C-alpha cells in the first residue's frame, strides 16, 4: 500500500513541478502585460480550469496511443503519461491563480519598477519573489487537484498493478471489487493529505498577508 502512496506522490509532485514551471512565469507575465488579447487568454485559461479530467485523459490517450501522433515514444500506460495528463490538468489552475495573486501586487509595484528602469525580466523576478506566498498557495491547489484526480490517470495509466496504480485508481478498483477496507484506508490517507495541503495553504496565506500589510 505504501508503494502506491509513494507512486502517487511521485507522479503528482512531478506533475505539479512541471505545470508550475510553466504556469508561474506565464501567469506573472499575464498579470504584467498590457497587450491586446490578454483578457481573452485569462478567460480561456480560467475556463480550462473546469476541464473534466476524463476529457483530458482521453485527449492525452489519443495523443500517446501507438496510433496517435506521439505513439512512437511508447509513453502510454507509463507513469510519464500520468504526469503529462496531470500537468495538463493543473496547468490552467496554477496559471489562473498565479495571475490572480500577482495582479494586485503588480498594480502596486508598476510605477515604482518603471521609475527605477527595471527590465521585464527583473520585474518578472521581483513579482514572483514578492508574491511567493500566494503563488505557493496556487501550487498547492494544483497539487491537491493532481493527487485527488482519478479520471485522467486511469485512462492514460491503465491502472497497472505495481507500475501505474496510484491511490485514486486503487480506490476505484478496490471499491468495484467490493474490497472496501483497502479503499477506505487509502481514502483516509487522501483526506489526510488534503487536510495537510489545506492547512499549509492557510499558513502561507496568513504569512503572505503579514508581509503584504497594506501601507496607507
Amino acid at each position, binding site marked *: 500500500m505504501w508503494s502506491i502512496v509513494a507512486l502517487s506522490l511521485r507522479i503528482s509532485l512531478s506533475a505539479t513541478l512541471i505545470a508550475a514551471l510553466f504556469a508561474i512565469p506565464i501567469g506573472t507575465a499575464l498579470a504584467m502585460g498590457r497587450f491586446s488579447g490578454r483578457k481573452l487568454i485569462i478567460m480561456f485559461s480560467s475556463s480550462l480550469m473546469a476541464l473534466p479530467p476524463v476529457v483530458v485523459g482521453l485527449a492525452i490517450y489519443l495523443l500517446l496511443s501507438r496510433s496517435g501522433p506521439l505513439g512512437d515514444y511508447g509513453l502510454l500506460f507509463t507513469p510519464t503519461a500520468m504526469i503529462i495528463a496531470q500537468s495538463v490538468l493543473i496547468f490552467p489552475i496554477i496559471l489562473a491563480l498565479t495571475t490572480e495573486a500577482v495582479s494586485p*501586487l503588480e498594480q*502596486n*509595484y508598476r*510605477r*515604482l519598477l*518603471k*521609475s*527605477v*528602469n*527595471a*527590465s521585464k525580466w*527583473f520585474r518578472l523576478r*521581483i513579482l514572483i519573489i*514578492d508574491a511567493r506566498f500566494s503563488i505557493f498557495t496556487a501550487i498547492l491547489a494544483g497539487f491537491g487537484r493532481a493527487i485527488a484526480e482519478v479520471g485522467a490517470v486511469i485512462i492514460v495509466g491503465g491502472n497497472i498493478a505495481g507500475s501505474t496504480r496510484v491511490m485514486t485508481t486503487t480506490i476505484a478498483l478496490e471499491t468495484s471489487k467490493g474490497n472496501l477496507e483497502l479503499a477506505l484506508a487509502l481514502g483516509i490517507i487522501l483526506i489526510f493529505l488534503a487536510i495537510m495541503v489545506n492547512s499549509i495553504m492557510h499558513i502561507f496565506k496568513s504569512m503572505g498577508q503579514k*508581509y*503584504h*500589510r*497594506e*501601507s*496607507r
Partner: protein
Amino acid sequence: MKLTFNSVCFSQNSETLLGPIDLKLNIRGITNVLGYNGAGKSLFLEICHAMIEPTSGNVYWGTNSAYSSRHLRGFIFQHRVTLFRSVKKNIALPMQTAGWTKKRIESRLEELLCMANLEAKGNDPASTLSGGEVQRMALVRALATYPKTIIMDEPTSSLDPSATTEFEKLISKSANSGIKFLWATHNVSQAKRFADDIIFIAGGKVDESNEADKFFKNPRSIKAKNYIKGI
C-alpha cells in the same frame, strides 16, 4: 542638464490632458513645477521620466530620449510607494536594476541609510516606517545610483512640518553636491526658498517658464499671479 519638449501632447479618450508643450529648459539647480490641482503637473513629470509615453511629440534630456536616459535620473512619488520588503531591500532596488555587485550595493547601502538617518531601521519592513521616514527612504533610493537629476512629485505634501524640514535638509545637501531637481510642489513659500527656476503649468500647458526671482516678482499671467497670492 537640458530638458527639451518637442510639441508634446498627451490625450486620453480624445481629451487632451497635456500639451501641446514646447519647452527648452536648462535645469541649473532646483526647478520647481507649480500649478493648481489637476493642471497636469504629475503628468508632466511622469512624461519627463518616460513613465508615460506622450501621445505625440518627443522629450529629450540632453541629446537622449527620456526613455533611454531613465537610468540617469531618480523619481520620488507623492505617496508611499514601496516594495513589500525591508528598508534595505527597497533602497537596493535601483542598484539591482543597474546591475551592481552585491558587495558594492552593501557598502553604498550603509552610506545611504546613514544619509537618510535610518541606520537603525535598515532591516525593518518598509511598511512600518512613518510618512517622513518613507520619503527620506525614497530620496536615498532615488540617489542610490548617483543620478544627475531627481524628479519629485510633491514629496512633502503629506508630511508634518518637522518631517518636511528634515526632508528639505536632505534636498539642500544633495543640491549643494550638484544634483539637479525637477520638483513639483504646492507650497509657494517652499518654492520661494528653494527654486532657481519655475515652471508654471496651467490647463495642461506650460504657462510660464522663468527664473524664480522674476517669476515671483512679476508673473506674466493672471493665473500665475493668483496662484502666488494663494487665490
